[in-house]
Each structure stands twice: as structure tokens, then as C-alpha cells.
């Protein structure tokens, strides 16, 4: 009996509202792979799609679109300097289990209009939600200040981006957005998510992956450094010594 009740309760409250949604997202990315070459200087991804529906467009506020692109999560340490005996040293450090190396949010309108706070918490859409800050409270009394600092520093570096009104929506059906990726990307699987909202509530979600990887010489050097460290170290030294000797020999010839 109890089991049946739980099942009913799950059906009534637990199951996401999306399942019954008459509107679905059909979307594509201009590229699912980004190759980092030696001359890599950032990249663009065009995200485009349409809303597929079985019924006419519901009444009410217009449809809004939010697109997020999230880089691989990494543990991060945020330190704060304090004044101790006349010098500034790191006095407090908060370790975060997972903060994305890159995070971009593009919306079709002001964030406060297109997304409610509850759905932001549920789908982890805005930047603060993307950062895993569980277990930081016991590391510092004002742990949120450290998270804010992380967001502020990464925003200044162009690694965390919020671009409101960057998504263009046409006739509540077609949408597209141009996402810019900075030059200092790291390798990994980047997760692109598309949400459509109405009245701040998420009514459909779509996800696809973008693979960012080094190719050619970049990949070869990286793999050699990881797989054959002694060979890599010796090769670095041989290059250094040969270059030093060569330069000296060339200059000697030039001077004659």
C-alpha cells in the first residue's frame, strides 16, 4: 500500500513537467567538434533550432529561449589574502569540488524575465548554479564570497559569460544564437543545453555535446608529455641544447 502511495506521489509531483509538454525542441549545432590547433584563437558555435508542437501556440507570454554551454568541471581552490604582520598572504582557502572551466549563458531576454528562481535551482542554469559549492560552508564562514570571487575573476577572463538578448527567436518557433568560445579553452566534452521557457517556467530541454580537442602537433606534444615523460623531457633538452649551439655557430659565421 505504502509502495503504491509513493508511486502515485511520484507520478503526481516528482515526474518533471516536461514529460507532458506539447512543445519539444529540435536543434542543431554548427559544429560538434572544435579542433585546437597551434593557431587556435577562439571559435564560434552557431546554435539553431525550432520548437516542434502538436497544438497551436499556447496563449500567454511569448516563448523564450535560454542556451548554456558548459566546459568540463574541475576542482578549484579560491584563496583570500589577509594582512598579517604587515604583509599580504593567503590566509583562507576554499576548495570547490567542481567548477566548469568555461560557462556561457545566452538568453532571448533579460534573465529575470525569462527564468524563475525555482526553475533556475532545478535546472542549474545561471552561473552560480553551475558551480558545485556543497561542503564549502564549513571551510569558511563567508564561503559564498569565495564563490562570488571565482565567478568575478572568471568573468573578467572571459571564461564565464552571460549574454542576455543573444538568442534570436522568430515567431515563437525558430531560434538561433552565436556563441563565442575564448582562445584559452581546455580540452574536454562541452555540454550544450537549450531550454524553452514561458512565464519563467522551463517547458522543454534539449542537450547535446561538443567535443573540444587538440589536433596535430598540439595533440602529439600533449600525449608525449603525458605518456612518455622522460622522452619528452630529454627531447626538450636536446632542442634547447641544439638551438643554443646552433645560434652560437650561426653568429660566428655571420661575424666572419
Amino acid at each position, binding site marked *: 500500500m505504502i509502495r503504491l502511495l509513493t508511486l502515485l506521489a511520484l507520478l503526481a509531483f516528482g515526474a518533471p513537467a516536461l514529460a507532458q509538454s506539447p512543445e519539444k525542441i529540435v536543434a542543431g549545432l554548427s559544429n560538434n567538434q572544435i579542433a585546437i590547433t597551434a593557431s587556435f584563437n577562439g571559435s564560434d558555435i552557431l546554435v539553431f533550432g525550432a520548437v516542434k508542437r502538436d497544438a497551436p501556440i499556447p496563449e500567454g507570454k511569448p516563448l523564450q529561449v535560454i542556451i548554456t554551454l558548459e566546459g568540463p568541471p574541475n576542482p578549484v581552490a579560491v584563496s583570500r589574502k589577509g594582512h598579517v604582520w604587515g604583509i599580504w598572504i593567503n590566509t583562507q582557502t576554499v576548495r570547490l569540488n567542481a567548477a566548469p572551466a568555461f560557462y556561457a549563458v545566452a538568453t532571448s531576454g533579460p534573465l529575470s524575465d525569462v527564468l524563475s528562481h525555482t526553475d533556475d535551482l532545478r535546472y542549474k542554469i545561471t552561473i552560480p548554479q553551475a558551480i558545485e559549492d556543497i561542503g564549502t560552508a564549513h571551510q569558511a564562514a563567508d564561503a559564498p564570497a569565495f564563490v562570488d*570571487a571565482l565567478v568575478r575573476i572568471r568573468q573578467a577572463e572571459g571564461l564565464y559569460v552571460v549574454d542576455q538578448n543573444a538568442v534570436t527567436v522568430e515567431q515563437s518557433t525558430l531560434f538561433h544564437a552565436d556563441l563565442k568560445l575564448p582562445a584559452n579553452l581546455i580540452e574536454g566534452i562541452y555540454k550544450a543545453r537549450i531550454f524553452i521557457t514561458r512565464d519563467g517556467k522551463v517547458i522543454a530541454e534539449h542537450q547535446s555535446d561538443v567535443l573540444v580537442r587538440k589536433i596535430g602537433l598540439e595533440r602529439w606534444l600533449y600525449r608525449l*608529455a603525458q605518456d612518455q*615523460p622522460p622522452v619528452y623531457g630529454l627531447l626538450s633538452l636536446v632542442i634547447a641544447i641544439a638551438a643554443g*649551439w646552433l645560434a*652560437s655557430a650561426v653568429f660566428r659565421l655571420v661575424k666572419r
Partner: protein
Amino acid sequence: MQIYLPIAEVSVNLYVLLGIGGGVGLLSGIFGVGGGFLITPLLLFIGVPPGVAVATGANQVVAASVSGLMVHIRRRTVDFKMGTVMLVGGFLGSNLGIYIFELMKRAGQTELFVQFSYVFFMGIIGLMMFQESFRAIRRARNPALAAGANRQRSRHSWVQRWPMKMKFRTSGLYISVIPPFAIGLMVGVLSATMGVGGGFIIVPAMIYILGMNTRVVVGTSLFQIIFVTAYSVMAHAIANQSVDMALAVLLIVGGVVGAQIGTVIGFRLKAEQLRILLALLVLAVAVKIGLDLVLKPADLYSIRSVNHP
């Protein structure tokens, strides 16, 4: 033109890298210092992660030092015997230094330790060199003071009373092997803990403690720096995979050219002038790092990736 560095995983301007390599190479050729104490802060400044900056800086120092050493070998201004004695001490010292560094890491204050070492050692050595070379220049201008200079030189003789004497013909010395060995050891410790070749310490130590002929000091210092930094490159490559070969090659291209020009300039300058300039350079870096500790930073917060070098 931007270039993406495979290990550092950042994109930097190609000409900035060539410029840094060239500038540091020039100084390394003039003064016989590897330039590690300049290149590491400069790489940090353009956004290279600290671990990569230290390891790759060491690789660039190897190249610049080889380039400079070749010129000194042709001019016969390298004391290989003295350099080898120092090197034996240097290898022992760098292993000791790696151990000390590990202890500091466990205490959680590596950054502070490195900054303090820089300010302390570079401050003291810079001041000593500045004072001495300033006096030497005044003596050269005013012959009346020269009489006192000869008396001062004999102060080095305490080194000569130690046992295990060896003849260092190129340096014009017949002294115990213990002082050069000890200097090598100390420099090895410092190079492993501070991520530098140790040239700025070894050059004044050879002049003021050992009383070596100043003509062979620079070449001999370069000889010893090559091996100490090569050892450190291997250690970093194996332990942290933090040597960025693409970054190193670009720094090297600028660096070897700079070092050749620098060596020629170095031969034209007088020894006292050379020392006073090196003293000012060392002091400038010490003051800069000292100010970073004392002045309130623009941003109290800093971030670092935990699993990235």
C-alpha cells in the same frame, strides 16, 4: 598573431613570447645569469600557469646558457674544473631543495616561502654587489683610494686555509674544494626551491667568496647553470608533465639570439659596470616582489585549478 600552447592550455601572442625570450637572453648573455628569476615572473604575468612557467623557464635557461657558454669556451674563459666541483654540490643541493619544497607544500605556504626567498636572497646579494661595485668604480676614478683596495683583497685568504686543496689554473686559484662545493650545494637548494638557475647567487659568490678571476666567472657560472637547470627540466617533466615544448621553442628562438648579442655587449663593458648593472637588476626584482607582499593587492582573491600544474 596568437598561438595556443599545448601544455599551458592558454593562447598567447607570438611576438610577446619572442620579445620575452630575446630580452631575457640578452641579459643572460651580458651578465652570465640564466635569467630564470626574470623569465618565470614574466610568464606568470602573461597568464601562463605557475608550474608551467617555472618548468618551461628552466628549459629556456638551458638554451640561453648553452649559447652563451659556446662563446666563452672559444675565448677560454670557462673553468671546467671549478664548475664540476660546484656541480657535484649542486646536484646534492637540488635534491635537498626538492625535499624542503615538499615540506613547505605540506605546510601549505609554498607561495609565501618562494616570495620570501626571492626578497631575502636577492635583496642581500643585490645590496652587497651594489655596494662593492660602487666602491670599485669610485676607486677606479680616484687613485688615492686604490691603496685601500689591495688590503681588502687579502681578506679572501680565509678560504685558502681549508684542507683538500686543489689547483684551479683557469681561475688562478689554489684553494680547498670545500668552499666551491658548499656554494654549489647552497645554489642547488635555492634553484630547486625558487625555480631559478642560481646565476645571480653564484656569480657574486665566485667573485667575493672564492676570489676568482672575474674574466672566467661568467663562463663558469653558465657551465654550472646548464646542468642544474637541465636536471630541473627533467624533474618537472617527469613529476608534473609541466614543460611546454611549444612555449620553450618560442622563448628559445628569441633567447639564443639575445644571448649572442648580450655576450658581445658583456665583453665590451667593464667588470665593475657589469656588476653594478646586475646588482640593480637583482635589486629591482627583489623590490618588486617585496612590494607585492607589502602593498594591498588589487584583488584579495586568487584562484588556481587543483589538478592542473
